[in-house]
């Protein structure tokens, strides 16, 4: 099979999953306690106006019909109206998505940059101080609640040392938001050549992304160490050593490339964690991403907004897993033969 066929097959395999997600989010809306129509109609509603709204919302139809309407709305990108802001949910989510992505991706980059070298070194020098450090980081990372780490960092770096800016969103009030190109403030400011703004945005980004990175570091470092240990103990590595290849080549080419596969898989799992942890981190740092949007919606029971958030997070996660799956197939020749 050619690589293109494999990519296509993987995409097809994702369709049932996406369908399952849509069914679950639809059922979640149906599980609402109370009557959404009465909610929309407000406190002064009469029985007729509630019935009218129910008909308008399509709630008097049978479940399959309602599901079909839901699917049709979804396919045209309509996630419903937010009750609290009156805006379409899809537009609001899209407007806030860059902030969340900027945070999540920075955190992931940071944690990959730390976790992989740490895990590799810990495996190569087993039981040395760096292995102990790796163990400590892994244990702490698994046990520390994200929101707690965030608050600790704020206390130490903002209140005590004054190194970090106040945890209030993406940009200091002194700076004007640069024209939007990528939606990532630091990049946008760099593109607009507003160095002070870029520096300020980067400073605001630092603490939340470190918080999130600390959380995602643990599983990555743990998996890197375990995968490297397994690769180092393998027969092919002994052969490579016996053949007199240089230490660096044995480690980086033969051991690391083989250890890379489980690491990439873990990366997908870690991404799922960070989408959840994002909500907590955004709350702690008043970060105006989709997580805080969902929280605002939760407080006022704005169901359409919460459902839209859950659905879009799940679809995002499926897409990331799909991408990882495809990368996986492309970098591992064995998968191609089996595929």
């Amino acid at each position, binding site marked *: 099979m050619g690589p293109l066929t494999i990519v296509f097959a993987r995409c097809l395999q994702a369709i*049932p*999953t996406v369908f*399952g*997600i849509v*069914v*679950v*989010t639809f059922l*979640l*809306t149906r*599980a*609402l*306690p109370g009557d959404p129509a009465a909610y929309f109609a407000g406190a002064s509603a009469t029985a007729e106006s509630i019935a009218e709204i129910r008909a308008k919302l399509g709630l008097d139809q049978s479940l399959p019909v309602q599901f079909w309407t839901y699917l049709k709305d979804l396919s045209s990108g309509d996630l419903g109206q937010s009750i609290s802001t009156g805006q379409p949910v899809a537009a609001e989510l899209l407007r806030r998505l860059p902030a969340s992505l900027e945070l999540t991706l920075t955190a992931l980059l940071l944690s990959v940059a730390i976790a992989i070298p740490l895990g590799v070194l810990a495996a190569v020098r087993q039981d040395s101080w760096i292995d102990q450090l790796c163990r400590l980081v892994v*244990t702490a990372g*698994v*046990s*520390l*609640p*994200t*929101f*707690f780490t965030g*608050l*600790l960092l*704020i*206390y130490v770096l*903002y*209140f005590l040392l004054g190194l970090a800016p*106040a*945890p209030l969103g993406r940009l200091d009030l002194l700076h004007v938001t640069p024209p939007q190109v990528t939606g990532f403030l630091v990049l946008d400011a760099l593109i607009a050549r507003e160095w002070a703004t870029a520096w300020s945005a980067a400073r605001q980004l630092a603490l939340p992304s470190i918080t999130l990175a600390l959380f995602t570091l643990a599983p990555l470092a*743990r998996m890197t*160490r*375990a995968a490297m240990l397994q690769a180092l103990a393998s027969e092919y590595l002994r052969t490579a050593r016996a053949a007199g290849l240089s230490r660096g080549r044995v480690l980086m080419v033969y051991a690391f490339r083989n250890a890379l596969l489980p690491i990439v898989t873990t990366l997908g799992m870690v991404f*799922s*964690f960070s*989408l*959840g*942890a994002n*909500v*907590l981190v955004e*709350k*702690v740092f008043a970060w105006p991403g989709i997580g805080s949007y*969902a*929280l605002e919606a*939760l*407080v006022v*029971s704005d*169901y359409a907004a*919460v*459902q839209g*958030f*859950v659905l879009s*997070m*799940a679809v995002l*996660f*499926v897409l990331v*897993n799909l991408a990882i799956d495809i990368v996986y197939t492309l970098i591992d020749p064995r998968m191609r033969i089996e595929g």
Partner: protein
Amino acid sequence: MADAAFTPPLARISPPRSAFTRSFAHFRYVMTSNPITFLAFLLLAGMIVIAAFGPALVPHDPLATLADKALKPPSAQHWFGTDQLGRDVFSRVIIATRLDMLISVSAVAMSFACGATLGAFAGYWGGWFDRLSGRVLDTIMAFPLFVLAMGIVAAAGNTIQNIVIATAIINLPFYARVARAEVSIRRNAGYVQAARLSGNSEFRILLLKILPNTLPPMMVQLSLNMGWAILNAAGLSFIGLGVRPPTAEWGIMVAEGANYIVSGEWWLALFPGAALMLAVFTFNLLGDGLRDLVDPQRRT
């Protein structure tokens, strides 16, 4: 070394012993061979005592507000200081242990029971039930789990009970998968065939012959999962779901304390956060220790 001087270790143990002393000896062996597991066990015992007798141990009423004593730093009288309403943080942290444990233990117990049943049936009989349950579990796993829990609580209503159910649902796939794998590898084991030949019903075989053998890996999963369940439940209450304000619970206490961190009142958030961390840490250590016992190969 002379062979005659060597006594095999087994010979030194006197053979007739009761089941109790035997299991106690095994417990002692496990605990002394790995001091960290022993430490975790002590921490767990402490936590259970605190959860059971918390209300009798606290020096102050956890709900009593004293306006003139608001936001006082830790002192001899108030070990962990007082919060914005003058409530004693130490008492609240202690009291909260019971609620936090209750939420996570009942969530994990629900996941365990439902997941084990589902996985055992799927693993034993296979077929359409296996495929269907596999699909459902895959769909759950396709969500970022914390986000799914948020959605469930938002839809089903903002109560502690729904926090428990949401946490149970997002943990279900882990148990079901372990149970399914463990049951399906034993489905045709020698002792199962022997039981079948001697006329046991399929249900009886699954319940009495196979399930007890899958318990060790399931217990490890339970212990490893427990810390995660606590973190999840606390995360949900941190964002304002489930537990209502005057109630003492670690997640919501950290959330309340978060507003005072920027002005330097660290003790409000630090102590409940540290308690949360300690609880999660305990269960993770315990889980790692148990896993080493059951499956030495995966020791990290």
